[in-house]
C-alpha cells in the first residue's frame, strides 16, 4: 500500500473519533475535548507527514472502485489547493477545540458538541480532499447535515432551530443542484475523477451542456458560500455557539463554496457566462454584506455580514476569471480565515465575560480586558485592510485586479469605484466593531462585571493574530511558499508572476486603499445621521420575508394536496390507488401496441394447452372457495376456513405445475397464517357488521369485477403467448456456479442472495415491529364463541399434549432433512424454518405458553439476531477472500459412514435464512398468543362495538 492511501485515514479519523468523543463525555466532560483535540492533532500530524513525503509529487490521487456502474469511486487527492484547505480546517479546528473547551458552560453537553464538530470536520476534509466528484458531493451534503446539528446545538432556543432549518434548506437545496451539475459534468467528460475533469477544461467549455452544468454547480457554490440572493441563512446561523460560528464562517462551511470555485477554476472559468454570473453575484454580495454589516448592533451579526461581504469579494475575484485574480482570491481565503476566526473568538470572549453582544450597550472594555481588546483591534485592522496587516495585501491585489479588468466590465471607472466603496464600508464597520466595544463607555450596567477570560481561551486568538501580523509584515517569507503551492494546485499549472511585497509604488490601487481608509473613518465619524436614515428606510428589507412566504406557500400547497387525497378514509385512498392501477391498465390496452397482441392472443386461443379435467375441477373449487369467502365474509370464522381452502388450493396448483418448493412454502405458510388469524380473531368481533349500503356494495362489486376481469385478461394474454426467459443462465450456472441442483434454492441463496438478505431483514423487522406493538397491550376478549358457548374448561387437552410431544422430534427431524436437501432437492431454509416454527408453535398451543417456555428455553430474539448475523457473516466472509459480497465457495469431501458430502458456503447463508424465519414466526405467534394471558373479559362485550360515529358529524360518505 502506498503512503498516500493514508489520506483516507485523515478524512475518516474525525468520523471515528466523533462517537468516541460523545461516549467519553459520560465519564468526564472534558474528555470529549481531549478526544476531539487529540484526533485533530493526529490527523494533522499524519497529514503533515503525507505532505512532507509528496511535496514534489503533487498532485497525487488515489482511487478505489466503489460503485463502478455509477462512476463512483472512493479516492482522495492531494494537491496545493486541497493541502491548503486541509491545513486550514485542521489548524483552525484545533484552535476552535481549545477555545470551545473553555467557552461552553457547565450546562452544555460537551460530548454532543465535540461529536458534531468532529463530524463536521470530517465532512469538510472529505469535500476538500475528494478525488471523485460524486464522493465530493456526498461529503458536501454531510457538511450541510453536520452544520445543521451544530447550529441547532442549543436545541431549546427557537432561533437556533429556525437558523438550523434555514441553513439546511438553503444549503441542502444547493447541494441537490450541485449533484445535478456534477452529473452533467461527468457526462461531458466521461469520468467523475477530478484529474480527468480538470484536464478537460476546453472540452467542457465548448460543450452544449456547459451552461446548465455551470449554473447548477454555481447554485451549489452560492448557497453554500452565502452569495446574494442566498445570503440570508448565514446571519441566522449565528444562533450557534460562538466557537461554531468561528469555525463554520471563517475556515470551513462557507469556504466550501469558494473552494469549489477554486477547484473548478481550470475546468469552468474564463467564459463570458462565468464572468457575468460569478462576478455579478460576488459584487452584489460584497457591497450588500458590507453595507448591512455596518448597521448590525449584534457583534456576531456584524461579523456575519462582514463574512458575507468578504465571501463576495473572493467570489468576485474568481469571477474575474484571470489567473492573477485567482491568486488574489486564494490569498484572501487564507487571510480571511485567520482574521475572521480571531474576530469571532473575540466576540465570543466579550459575550462570555460581559453577558451581551449588543454594541449599543457595550463600551470601554479596554479598561477591563486590554489583552482581548488588543487582539480584537489587530484582527479588525486586518479586516479593514490597514497596511502591515495581512488583509491589506490581499485587498491591494484585489484592487489591482479590479483596475486591470475594469475595462471589460462597463465604464472603466465603475468597477474600481464600487470596490473602493465596499472597501470603505468595511473600514467603517471594522472601526465600529473596535470602537463601540472597547472604547467609549457602556450604556448602563453590563449583565456581568467584565474581566479578562481564562488564559487558554485567548491562546488560539493570540496565535492567529500573530499570523495576521507576520503575514502582513513579511508576506513573501511567511506565506509565499504556501501560497505558491496552493495557487499551483488551483491553476493546475505554474502560476503567473505576482509580487507579495508591501510597497508597489504610488498607483491607483494604493489611492483606492487610501480613499477607503479615509472614507471609512469619515463615514464612521458621521454615523449618527446615517444610522437614523437607515433605520427609517432600508432596515426593513429582509430576504427572509421572501423565503418565509415561499415556505408558507409550499407548506400550504402541500397540506392542500394532502387534504385532497387523504381525507382520513382508508376506503377512499384504496379507491384512488385501485382506480389509478385500473386506469393505467386500460391505457396499456388502448395504446396502439397494446390492443393488437391481446386480440392475437385471444384469436389464437388455447395454444398447446395440456389440460386435464382434474386440474380444471381443482381450479373451479378454488374459485368457488374464494367466492364463498367474499360473499359470506361477515361470518369471520367461516370465511377464514374457506380462505384456507383457497390457500391450500394455491399450494396444489404450485405442486401441479412443477413448483415443489413453492407448494411446500405455501403449505407451511398456510399453517402459520391460520394460527395467526385465528389468534387475532379471538380479540376481534366474531361477525362483521353491515356498515355499507347495498348501493355501495354493488359499486364495490363492480370495481372488483372490473379489476378482476382486467387481471384475468392480462394474465391470459401473457401466458398464452410464447416467451423468452432469462433463466437459461441460472439453469446453466446453477451447478458450476452455485454448487446445487435445485435452481430455485440456488437463486435464493446465491444468485440473488443479496435480495434474500434484504427480505429476511424485512421479515425480522416485521417480527420486531409486532413484538413492539404487542408489548403491554391488553385487549378485551370474549369468553364465549360466536354461538354463545363458553370456551372449553380444559385449555390443554391431554391427547393434544401427548401427540404433539411425539410429533415434535419427528417434525424437527423432517425440518432438518428439508433444510439439508434444500440446495439440491426441493426444500431449503425458508421451508424448513416454517416447518420447525409450526412444530414449535404446536408445543406452545398444546402445553400453554408458560409451560412450553419452561421446557424449551428458546431465546427467540437471539435466534432472530443470530440468523441475521450468520447471513451477513457469510456474505462478509466472501469479501474477506477478495470476492464480492455473498460469493459462494464449494467443497467436496467424504466423511466416514455418511459418505460423499458436497457443501457450498451458501448453506451457511441458508442457515441464516432458516433461523430468521423460525425466529420471526415464533416472535409473532408467541407474542400474540401471550396476550390471552392478559386478556380481560369485558363485562358488556357488545357495547364496545359501537358504530364509529353518527353519520351526520362526518363529511363524505364512507363504507
Amino acid at each position, binding site marked *: 500500500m502506498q503512503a498516500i492511501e493514508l489520506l483516507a485515514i485523515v478524512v475518516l479519523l474525525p468520523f471515528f473519533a466523533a462517537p468516541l468523543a460523545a461516549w467519553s463525555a459520560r465519564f468526564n466532560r472534558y474528555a470529549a475535548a481531549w478526544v476531539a483535540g487529540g484526533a485533530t492533532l493526529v490527523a494533522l500530524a499524519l497529514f503533515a507527514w503525507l505532505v512532507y513525503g509528496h511535496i514534489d509529487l503533487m498532485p497525487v490521487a488515489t482511487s478505489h472502485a466503489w460503485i463502478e456502474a455509477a462512476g463512483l469511486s472512493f479516492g482522495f487527492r492531494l494537491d496545493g489547493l486541497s493541502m491548503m484547505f486541509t491545513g486550514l480546517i485542521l489548524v483552525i479546528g484545533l484552535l476552535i477545540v481549545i477555545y470551545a473547551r473553555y467557552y461552553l458552560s457547565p450546562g452544555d453537553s460537551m460530548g454532543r458538541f465535540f461529536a458534531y464538530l468532529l463530524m463536521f470536520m470530517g465532512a469538510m476534509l472529505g469535500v476538500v480532499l475528494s478525488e471523485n466528484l460524486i464522493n465530493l458531493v456526498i461529503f458536501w451534503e454531510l457538511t450541510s447535515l453536520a452544520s445543521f446539528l451544530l447550529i441547532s446545538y442549543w436545541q431549546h432556543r427557537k432561533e437556533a432551530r429556525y437558523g438550523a432549518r434555514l441553513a439546511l434548506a438553503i444549503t441542502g437545496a444547493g447541494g441537490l443542484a450541485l449533484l445535478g451539475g456534477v452529473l452533467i459534468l461527468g457526462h461531458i467528460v466521461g469520468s467523475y475523477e477530478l484529474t480527468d475533469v480538470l484536464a478537460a477544461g476546453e472540452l467542457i467549455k465548448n460543450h452544449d451542456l456547459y451552461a446548465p452544468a455551470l449554473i447548477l454547480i454555481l447554485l451549489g457554490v452560492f448557497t453554500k458560500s452565502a452569495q446574494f440572493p442566498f445570503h440570508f441563512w448565514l446571519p441566522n446561523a449565528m444562533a450557534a455557539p460562538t466557537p461554531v460560528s468561528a469555525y463554520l464562517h471563517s475556515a470551513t462551511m462557507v469556504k466550501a463554496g469558494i473552494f469549489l470555485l477554486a477547484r473548478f477554476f481550470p475546468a469552468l472559468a474564463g467564459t463570458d457566462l462565468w464572468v457575468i454570473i460569478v462576478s455579478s453575484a460576488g459584487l452584489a454580495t460584497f457591497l450588500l454584506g458590507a453595507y448591512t454589516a455596518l448597521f448590525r448592533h449584534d457583534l456576531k451579526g456584524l461579523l456575519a455580514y462582514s463574512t458575507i461581504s468578504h465571501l463576495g469579494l473572493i467570489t468576485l475575484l474568481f469571477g474575474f476569471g484571470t489567473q492573477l485574480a485567482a491568486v488574489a482570491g486564494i490569498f484572501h481565503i487564507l487571510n480571511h480565515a485567520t482574521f475572521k476566526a480571531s474576530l469571532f473568538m473575540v466576540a465570543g470572549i466579550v459575550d462570555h465575560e460581559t453577558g451581551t453582544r449588543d454594541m449599543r450597550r457595550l463600551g470601554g472594555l479596554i479598561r477591563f480586558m486590554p489583552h482581548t481588546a488588543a487582539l480584537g483591534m489587530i484582527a479588525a485592522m486586518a479586516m479593514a485592510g490597514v497596511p502591515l496587516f495581512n488583509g491589506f495585501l490581499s485587498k491591494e491585489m484585489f484592487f489591482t485586479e479590479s483596475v486591470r479588468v475594469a475595462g471589460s466590465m462597463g465604464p472603466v471607472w465603475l468597477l474600481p469605484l464600487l470596490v473602493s466603496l465596499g472597501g470603505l464600508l468595511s473600514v467603517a464597520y471594522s472601526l465600529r466593531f473596535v470602537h463601540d466595544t472597547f472604547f467609549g463607555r457602556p450604556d448602563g450596567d453590563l449583565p456581568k462585571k467584565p474581566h479578562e477570560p481564562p488564559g487558554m481561551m485567548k491562546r488560539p486568538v493570540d496565535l492567529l493574530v500573530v499570523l495576521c501580523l507576520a503575514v502582513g509584515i513579511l508576506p513573501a517569507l511567511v506565506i509565499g511558499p504556501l501560497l505558491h503551492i496552493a495557487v499551483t494546485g488551483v491553476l493546475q499549472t505554474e502560476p503567473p508572476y505576482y509580487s507579495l511585497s508591501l510597497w508597489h509604488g504610488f498607483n491607483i490601487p494604493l489611492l483606492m486603499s487610501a480613499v477607503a481608509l479615509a472614507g471609512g473613518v469619515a463615514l464612521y465619524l458621521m454615523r449618527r445621521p446615517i444610522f437614523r436614515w437607515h433605520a427609517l428606510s432600508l432596515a426593513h428589507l429582509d430576504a427572509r420575508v421572501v423565503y418565509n412566504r415561499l415556505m408558507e406557500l409550499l407548506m400550504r400547497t402541500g397540506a392542500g394536496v394532502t387534504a385532497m387525497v387523504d381525507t382520513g378514509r382508508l376506503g377512499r385512498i384504496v379507491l384512488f390507488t385501485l382506480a389509478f392501477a385500473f386506469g393505467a391498465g386500460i391505457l396499456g390496452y388502448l395504446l396502439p401496441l397494446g390492443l393488437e397482441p391481446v386480440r392475437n392472443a385471444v384469436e389464437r386461443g388455447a395454444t398447446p394447452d395440456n389440460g386435464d379435467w382434474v386440474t380444471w375441477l381443482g381450479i373451479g373449487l378454488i374459485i368457488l372457495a374464494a367466492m364463498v369467502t367474499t360473499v359470506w365474509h361477515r361470518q369471520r370464522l367461516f370465511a377464514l376456513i374457506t380462505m384456507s381452502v383457497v*390457500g391450500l388450493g394455491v399450494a396444489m396448483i404450485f405442486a401441479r405445475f412443477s413448483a415443489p418448493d413453492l407448494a411446500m412454502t405455501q403449505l407451511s405458510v398456510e399453517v402459520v397464517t391460520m394460527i395467526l388469524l385465528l389468534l387475532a380473531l379471538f380479540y376481534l368481533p366474531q361477525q362483521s357488521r353491515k356498515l355499507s349500503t347495498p348501493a355501495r356494495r354493488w359499486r364495490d362489486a363492480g370495481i372488483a369485477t372490473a379489476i378482476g376481469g382486467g387481471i384475468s385478461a392480462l394474465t391470459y394474454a401473457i*401466458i398464452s403467448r410464447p416467451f423468452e426467459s432469462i*433463466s437459461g443462465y441460472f439453469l446453466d450456472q446453477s451447478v458450476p456456479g452455485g454448487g446445487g441442483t435445485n435452481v430455485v434454492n440456488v437463486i435464493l441463496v446465491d444468485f440473488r442472495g443479496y435480495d434474500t438478505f434484504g427480505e429476511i431483514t424485512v421479515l425480522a423487522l416485521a417480527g420486531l415491529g409486532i413484538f413492539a406493538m404487542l408489548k403491554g397491550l391488553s385487549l378485551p376478549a370474549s369468553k364465549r364463541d360466536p354461538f354463545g358457548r363458553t370456551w372449553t374448561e380444559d385449555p390443554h387437552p391431554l391427547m393434544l399434549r401427548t401427540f404433539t410431544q411425539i410429533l415434535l422430534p419427528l417434525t424437527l427431524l423432517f425440518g432438518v432433512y428439508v433444510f439439508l436437501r434444500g440446495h439440491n432437492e*426441493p426444500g431449503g431454509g425458508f421451508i424448513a424454518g416454517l416447518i420447525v416454527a409450526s412444530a414449535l408453535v404446536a408445543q406452545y398451543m398444546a402445553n400453554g405458553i408458560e409451560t412450553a417456555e419452561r421446557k424449551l428455553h428458546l431465546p427467540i430474539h437471539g435466534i432472530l439476531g443470530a440468523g441475521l448475523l450468520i447471513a451477513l457473516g457469510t456474505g462478509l466472509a466472501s469479501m474477506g477472500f477478495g470476492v464480492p459480497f455473498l460469493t459462494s465457495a464449494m467443497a467436496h469431501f467424504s466423511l466416514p459412514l455418511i459418505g460423499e458430502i458436497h457443501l457450498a458456503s451458501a448453506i451457511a447463508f441458508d442457515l441464516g435464512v432458516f433461523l430468521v424465519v423460525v425466529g420471526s414466526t415464533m416472535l409473532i405467534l408467541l407474542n400474540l398468543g401471550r396476550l390471552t394471558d392478559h386478556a380481560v373479559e369485558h363485562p358488556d362485550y357488545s357495547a364496545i362495538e359501537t358504530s*364509529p360515529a353518527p353519520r351526520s358529524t362526518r363529511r363524505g360518505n364512507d*363504507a
Partner: protein
Amino acid sequence: MTNLALSLLIGVLTGAGVYLVLRAQTFPVVLGLTLMSYGVNLFLFTMGRLQTAAPAVIGAVENPTDPLPQALVLTAIVIAFAMTAFVIVLALKARAALGNDHVDGMHIPQADRVLDRKEEPRA
C-alpha cells in the same frame, strides 16, 4: 383450457381481494389482502408459463421449467405472511386504542367539532 381457467382464478382472487379490501372493518381487509396476495403470487408464478412434471432441478428432467419466477414468489409468500401479521397486529393495536375495529378508527364527536371549528375560517 388450463391457461384460461388459471387466468380466471387469478382474476377472481384479485377481484375478491379488492372487494374485501374496500370493506370498512379491519378483519375483512386483512382477508382481502391475503386473497390478493394469493392472486399476485399466482400471477407472478404463471409468468414462467405452466409446465407439468418439470421441476427446476438439474438432472431431474430434460426441459425444466423457469425457476426465476418461483424464486421470486417463494420469498413473496413469506413476506406476505409477515405483512399479514403486521397488519392484523396493527388492527389489534388500533382496536385496543380506539375501542372499535373500523379501518378509519374511532371518530370522537368532540374531536370532530374541534376540527370543524379550526377549518371554519378557510371555508
